[in-house]
C-alpha cells in the first residue's frame, strides 16, 4: 500500500461504515487516479473534499432531528432508515450513542417544560423586583439540582440496561438478535463419536 493510499483510507473513516464497505475501494481508486504522478502526499484540497464528502454522507444517512429524537425515545423509524438503525446499534460506540440519545431526549423535555413554565417564572420576577442573580432563585436552583440528579440516574440506568435497550430496538426494527442465553446459531456440527 502506497503512502497516498494509506492517507486516503484514513480519511475514509469520516464516511459511514456502509459506504466504506460498499464503495471504499472505488473511492480510493478514483482518488489515486487524481493524485499527480510522483506525489507521496495527496493534495490538501482532495483531503478536505474527502472529509467533507464523508461528513455530508453521514448527515444524509441520518434521520432528521425529530425522527432521531423519536427513535432515541424508543420509537420505530420508517424502513428507509433501517440500515442506519442497524449500524447505529451494532457499530462500536453504540452504548455511548444510546446514553447520549437518552440525555438529548431529557434535554428536550427540560427545554419544553421551561418554555411552558417561563411565563410564571417571569411573572414571579416582576412581582419581586429585588435584584437577585437568576441562579439564586429557589425554583431554578431546585430545578438544576433535580436535573443533575435525573441526568446521573439516566446515565447509570442506561449503562446498566444498554444491551436490553439495544436488543429491543433491533427487534422493533425487524432485526433478529439472539438473546444472550440463546444457543449459538448456526449450531456447531455434531462431533464424530464413531470408535475406530
Amino acid at each position, binding site marked *: 500500500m502506497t503512502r497516498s493510499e494509506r492517507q486516503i483510507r484514513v480519511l475514509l473513516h469520516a464516511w459511514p461504515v456502509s459506504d466504506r464497505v460498499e464503495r471504499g475501494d472505488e*473511492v480510493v481508486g478514483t482518488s489515486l487516479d487524481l493524485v499527480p504522478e510522483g506525489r507521496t502526499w495527496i493534495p490538501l484540497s482532495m483531503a478536505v473534499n474527502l472529509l467533507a*464528502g464523508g461528513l455530508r454522507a453521514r448527515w444524509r444517512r441520518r434521520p432528521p432531528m425529530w425522527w432521531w429524537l423519536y427513535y432515541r425515545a424508543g420509537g420505530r423509524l420508517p424502513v428507509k432508515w433501517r440500515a442506519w438503525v442497524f449500524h447505529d446499534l451494532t457499530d462500536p460506540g453504540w452504548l455511548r450513542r444510546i446514553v447520549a440519545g437518552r440525555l438529548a431526549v431529557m434535554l428536550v423535555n427540560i427545554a419544553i417544560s421551561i418554555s411552558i413554565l417561563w411565563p410564571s417564572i417571569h411573572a414571579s420576577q416582576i412581582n419581586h423586583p429585588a435584584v437577585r442573580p437568576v441562579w439564586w432563585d429557589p425554583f431554578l436552583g431546585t430545578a438544576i439540582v433535580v436535573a443533575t440528579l435525573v441526568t446521573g440516574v439516566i446515565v447509570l440506568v442506561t449503562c446498566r440496561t444498554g444491551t436490553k435497550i439495544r436488543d429491543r430496538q433491533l427487534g422493533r426494527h425487524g432485526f433478529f438478535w439472539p438473546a444472550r442465553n440463546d444457543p449459538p446459531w448456526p449450531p456447531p456440527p455434531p462431533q464424530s463419536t464413531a470408535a475406530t
Partner: protein
Amino acid sequence: MSHPLREPTFLILVALADAERHGYAIIKEVEKLSGGRLVLGPGTLYGALDRLSDEGLIEPTRTESVDGRMRRYYAITRSGRECVQTEAIQRSQVLRAAKVRLGRRPRGALA
C-alpha cells in the same frame, strides 16, 4: 424531479448521457464540459452519484479492476435522460432570453 438541478449534478448527467463511465472518467468529462471551470473532488462526485442513484437517475452497471484499482461504471437511466432533457430545454430558454435582453439597447441610454 421538480427542483432545478445544480450545476455539478447536471454536468454529471450530461457526461453520462452518451456512454457509461467510471468515476475518474466522469470527473474528466465534467471538467471538459465546463471548460475547466469545474473540477469535482472525489467526495463531491460520490455524494452526487449516491444521490442520483437514490433518485433513480443513474445506475451502476459493472465493475472492473485496472492496475489493482477498482472502477465502477455508471449509466444514465430513462428517467435520468428525461430529466436532462427537461433541464436542457429550461436552460436554453433562459439562455435565449438572456441573449435577447443583452442584445437590446439599454433603456434610457442616449444615442
